[in-house]
């Protein structure tokens, strides 16, 4: 409520819970929120983040191996953030094995209690409900499809017919934290999602590091997803500065520049 009227910036800002410590990651989340990020993306660290690049991978390994951050610890941290910022949109990201080990049903109900509406699990195809051992529980929580430019027409149509309302698009064929590029075929995917329903939101991530790139991305998507670059800014002690530049680049006042 305290941010009512504050200007939101169309960014999904990512961090790894427990990096560099659990307490510090909560503070980072607060810094992001105070800067006005539209969506906070909280990654529950996993020992082997198979879809992440070196920056996020080492942050996860630090959180798991040195900080010993459990799923329970991560949920407690999210609770702290939620209590302080009841209106902030939060998405949670992790890998399927951590959620599976915790218990899918229990995890989903925890997410509901924390008023998290979206869960990003890159190694879980969102419609993979083929077997009872991995049945996705009934819940208000929505999974987020993470798609790239090579998604087939049939696959995209199938997903669009389901009730996903946020699509995470990979800027190009790469891992997180790579050099930014936007695959030329991605525009077609964006058009089809928006044509299916303008209410379906789109975030683009993987490799966005400069405010200019973020601005470029928000011309074609609802939010720019930034992860590795934020972690690096924090490591260099330049997080506030980075967020300031980001805000400046993305605020409507600079629209005409």
């Amino acid at each position, binding site marked *: 409520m305290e941010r009512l009227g504050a200007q939101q910036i169309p960014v999904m800002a990512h961090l790894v819970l427990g990096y560099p410590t659990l307490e510090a990651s909560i503070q980072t989340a607060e810094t992001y929120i105070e800067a006005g990020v539209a969506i906070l993306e909280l990654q529950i660290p996993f020992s082997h983040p198979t879809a992440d690049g070196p920056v996020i991978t080492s942050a996860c390994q630090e959180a798991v191996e040195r900080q010993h951050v459990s799923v329970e610890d991560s949920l407690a941290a999210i609770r702290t953030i939620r209590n302080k910022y009841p209106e902030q949109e939060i998405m949670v990201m992790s890998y399927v*094995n951590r959620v599976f080990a915790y218990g899918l049903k229990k995890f989903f109900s925890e997410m509901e209690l924390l008023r998290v509406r979206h869960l990003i699990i890159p*190694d879980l195809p969102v419609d993979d409900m083929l077997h009872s051992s991995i049945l996705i529980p009934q819940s208000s929580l929505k999974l987020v499809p993470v798609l790239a430019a090579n998604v087939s027409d049939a696959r995209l149509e199938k997903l669009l017919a389901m009730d996903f309302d946020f699509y995470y698009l990979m800027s190009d064929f790469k891992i997180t934290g790579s050099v930014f590029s936007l695959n030329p075929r991605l525009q077609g995917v964006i058009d089809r999602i928006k044509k299916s329903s303008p209410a379906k939101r789109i975030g683009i991530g993987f490799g966005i590091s400069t405010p200019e790139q973020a601005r470029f991305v928000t011309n074609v998507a609802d939010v720019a997803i930034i992860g590795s670059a934020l972690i690096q800014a924090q490591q260099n002690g330049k997080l506030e500065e980075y967020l300031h530049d980001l805000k400046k680049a993305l605020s409507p006042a600079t629209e005409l520049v």
Partner: protein
Amino acid sequence: MNTTQTAYKDLILQSEGYFGPYGGCFVPEVLLPGLQEIAAAFDELKLDEAFLAEFHDTLHTFSGRPTAFTPLPRLTEEIGGAQLFLKNEGLNHTGAHKITHCIGQILLAKRLGKKRIIAETGAGQHGYATAAVCARFGLDCTVYMGRKDYERQRPNVYWMELLGTKVVPVEDGSQTLNDAVIAAFKDWVANPESYYLLGSAVGPHPYPAMNTFFQKVVGEEIRNQCVEATGRLPDYCVACVGGGSNAMGMFYDFLDDEEVGLIGVEAGGRGVQPGEHAAKVLHGQLGIFEGYHSYFLQDGDGNIAATHSVSAGLDYCGVSPILAYLADEGRVQFATASDAAALAAVQRLARKEGLIPALESAHGFAHAFELAATLPKDKIVVVNASGRGEKDLFITMRHFQEESLIAYAKHLLK
């Protein structure tokens, strides 16, 4: 559990990726088109006579199949129990069973018009075999190998490089097979037009079923050779289990012969404490990792645990979803053999029978020697020597003749 009623062979090859609750295709969406392309090609080619003829012809002319089926009379006499036989997969070109599924997959990749191959390797046997088939069929090849394996299996690194393959040491994590698999997947995400030639009966669909399909020739040869040599089927088939490709190759053809006991031997390492072994079926928990649902060594909160084995090929956190299913069904029994037992088995087989197995395969022998001692003399135990031991020169030499190794290293550096 009713092994007489279940037609496991059909069930596995017609599975579409699930074996009981296990298997699946748990990968980022970006990899689905590539996996679906491979799965569709496999579904077609597994019934294509021209393809199968080319596969078997290449196994014969390039890899030297069928491999020998060898009685072990002196060990049988010394142990005084069941008759021991060895299936010598180490006689394959590049020294192990791995080349069998590499030949199958490279022919498939060629049909798909692929130009570049990505692979992971643990002991280096799969990478070496992949490098050989890529050179043979004219495809570019990049192999990922954990830094620890890169250092301890240096001879195979050299062979791969000689064959024109780019070998990339992986510095992440525990720097073993697991980390190599992840690095290979990341390469595939960045290069979705490449073909990922995965090297065991693990990973997302269709790899577990596809590699089992290519490897099943091992069990088919054993069936014929055992009947020819003894007039009947084996009582037990014993194979070491890392991911499970040599075990599935040996077991598949016997799955519906309930009288044939099937035993997988996992790496017992230095003990049962976490991080000291690689026994997934016996000490792991259910999980979902690297594309499939199976047993994994984990920390109890969903993180993948470190593993240890003296043999790089068994030093891996997961196990084939097909073996997980067959273990639950009671169709395949599991045991472990320690590092020390495996080393002793190498020495014993060398001294008594003139054969030097890979350290991986030696785990199977260590268990088979114990098993044979408990059985009457009319029983037949066949052990899969999945690879030959030359690649382990510097590891076994260090255990058996450390001073000689040091002297040789000094001589080379002069």
